């Protein structure tokens, strides 16, 4: 909470620099509330004892809820969100790097608030707890449990705090490069230099953290620029790559890109889902020219697959123009996601690869003679033997995600929306994508807003922390 309060200094400085008085006051009030809340928690919950797995998980899941409630305060105070629930929706969407939004009149929002929307994505993408681990934690006591609780089960360096710091190093280096690239493209597109670099920084944070917010209501369509789309595609893909892979590429092991099971699975799923999307769009005759079909189809698909949610079409065009086949392909791409230990959500490529390998192994066992020894291996940084345990774990999380997608779709249908639209929006929320077919609007039922908030939260933390929290409350109710 103290970290979140300090992060609010960034929009305060910007607000003062550009003389946005009321927005600055919004952030000063929010900072003070967050600081008071953090100090109270420090007094009440301070302990020198090491955290157990259960406690680590609970701390993480509750931290995310607290971050949502506190991060929503400046948004609500701006007056651009109709209710505190709407502000919480956007705060969770930001922290969980989803990108669905209920903001009103975004084009007149202050720079300070706009920066905050993107900054919470940047923090959430790396992980709120990772922020704390990187900057505020000296010892590794309990750190690994919280690190795992935030859906990062892979250590890049032996020490989890060094791992967190490396993740921040990668992000900051790309932030500088990405902002420069987008800023220059913006200037070439006719934007004013200062505004162009501000947009560049915001769009980078949303792209690299596979978030999907943008400074203007038209999202990426605002720029009307192929170059902008290409640069954002590169950043989105970089964000969808495992930080461990980034580390190995930085260390000069470039062959790892081609050998890694995740990049291979990513490549195959992109090709296959794009093929189906293109086929669907061709059948509908939406885009008569191949180049136009590729530009629109591939952008929305890669945006969905990486879990970003940038759009170069209007939400209702998905329903009115894309047809069922293309829509289902995008839903599949959204459901799959990027790499583990990246900023994306959803099932993720490592699990898809493992489930596929496990299936191949089972088929081999049936086909080959009984005495044959069937062993499956996969390459993920090193050669790994496929075990029943890893296959079961991958399948369990995959099933949990499928259940979460289905749950949101049922909630959507309960509120009166058609099946495919409900499934699209639900998958987008649970997989932390942010593409919308038009359901996410300020006038949608509060029940659906709460459902999507839950989906974004559970999807981002990959269930274990949520299960631990539910288990804790269940035990408390039973008096254990």
């Amino acid at each position, binding site marked *: 909470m103290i970290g979140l309060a300090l992060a609010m200094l960034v929009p305060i400085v910007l607000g003062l620099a550009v003389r*946005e*008085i*009321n*927005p600055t*006051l*919004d952030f*000063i*009030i929010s900072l*003070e*509330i967050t*600081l*008071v809340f953090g*100090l*109270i928690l*420090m*007094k009440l919950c301070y302990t020198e004892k090491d955290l157990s797995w259960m406690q680590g998980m609970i701390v993480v899941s509750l931290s995310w809820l607290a971050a949502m409630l506190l991060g929503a305060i400046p948004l609500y*105070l701006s007056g651009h969100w109709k209710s505190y629930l709407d502000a919480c929706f956007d705060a969770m969407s930001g922290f969980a790097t989803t990108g669905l939004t209920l903001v009103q009149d975004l*084009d*007149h*929002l*202050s*720079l300070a608030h706009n920066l905050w929307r993107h900054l919470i994505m940047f923090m959430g993408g790396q992980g709120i707890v990772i922020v704390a681990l990187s900057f505020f934690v000296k010892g590794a006591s309990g750190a690994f449990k919280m690190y795992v609780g935030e859906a990062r089960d892979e250590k890049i360096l032996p020490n989890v705090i060094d791992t967190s710091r490396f993740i921040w190093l990668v992000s900051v280096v790309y932030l500088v490069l990405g902002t420069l690239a987008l800023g220059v493209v913006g200037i070439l*597109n*006719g*934007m*004013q230099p200062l*505004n162009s670099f501000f947009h560049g920084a915001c769009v980078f944070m949303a792209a690299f953290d596979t978030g999907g917010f943008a400074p*203007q*209501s*038209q999202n990426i*369509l*605002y*720029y*009307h620029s*192929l170059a902008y789309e290409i640069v954002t595609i590169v950043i989105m893909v970089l964000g969808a790559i495992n930080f461990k892979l980034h580390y190995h590429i930085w260390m000069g092991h470039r062959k790892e890109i081609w050998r890694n099971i995740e990049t291979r699975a990513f490549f195959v799923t992109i090709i296959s889902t794009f093929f189906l999307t293109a086929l669907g769009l061709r059948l509908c005759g*939406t*885009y*008569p*020219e191949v*180049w*136009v*079909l590729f*530009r*629109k189809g591939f952008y929305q698909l890669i945006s969905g697959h990486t879990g970003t949610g940038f759009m*170069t*079409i*209007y939400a*209702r*065009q998905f329903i*009115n*123009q894309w047809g069922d086949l293309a829509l289902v392909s995008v839903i599949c791409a959204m459901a799959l996601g990027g790499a583990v230990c990246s900023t994306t959500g959803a099932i993720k490529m490592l699990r898809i690869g493992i489930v596929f390998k496990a299936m191949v192994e089972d088929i081999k066992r049936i086909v080959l003679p009984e005495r044959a020894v069937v062993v499956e291996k996969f390459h993920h940084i090193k050669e790994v033997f496929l075990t029943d345990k890893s296959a079961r774990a991958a399948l369990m999380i995959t099933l949990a995600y499928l259940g979460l997608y289905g749950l949101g779709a049922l909630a959507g249908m309960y509120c009166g929306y058609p099946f495919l639209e409900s499934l699209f929006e639900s998958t987008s929320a649970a997989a932390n994508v942010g593409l919308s077919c038009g359901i996410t609007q300020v006038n949608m039922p509060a029940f659906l807003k709460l459902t999507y908030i839950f989906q974004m939260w559970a999807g981002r933390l990959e269930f274990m922390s949520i299960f631990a929290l539910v288990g804790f409350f269940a035990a408390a109710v039973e008096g254990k």
Partner: protein
Amino acid sequence: MHKLKAKSLKRKVQTQNLKLLFLSFCFTLYALHFTLMAAFCQAISSTELINNAKQYDGKVVDYEGEVIGEIMVRGEYAWMNVYDGDNALGIWLLKDLTRGLLYTGSYKSRGDRVVIAGIFHENCLEHGGDLDIHAQAVRKISPGRVATERINFAKVNQAAILGVLCLLMLILTLFKRK
């Protein structure tokens, strides 16, 4: 005498012709004004255009809204985005047509309100499939302005009270630690 009479008659006819020419010119201007007014007065909303894009594709439409963000000049042409309260649509227009536009909407200003008459494209082939309008005429219907920010003193008071509370909590925490 006869010559003089013929001359004055000729002059009279010439004057009458000039009058007629002037009147027909005025009438043409008047008619043109009404035609343009009629062309601009029935603006279609962005929601209608997005939801029924096929129906309007390739047709001349009128669209009204506030210019937001920035006008991005691209050579002889420019892109501007016009927000009608529901959505913003991209407008592709000749750079010269943007000359009279002074304000664009942001936190610090309200943009000029304009009526665009132009060809609507469901998936513009010239612009990579964007849903846009290629403007033929732009009319400013009300000028934008700088949005003056009034300091919200209720927020100032809240910030001050919370600041004191925060300070007390900090002191309390530090004392407890020592």
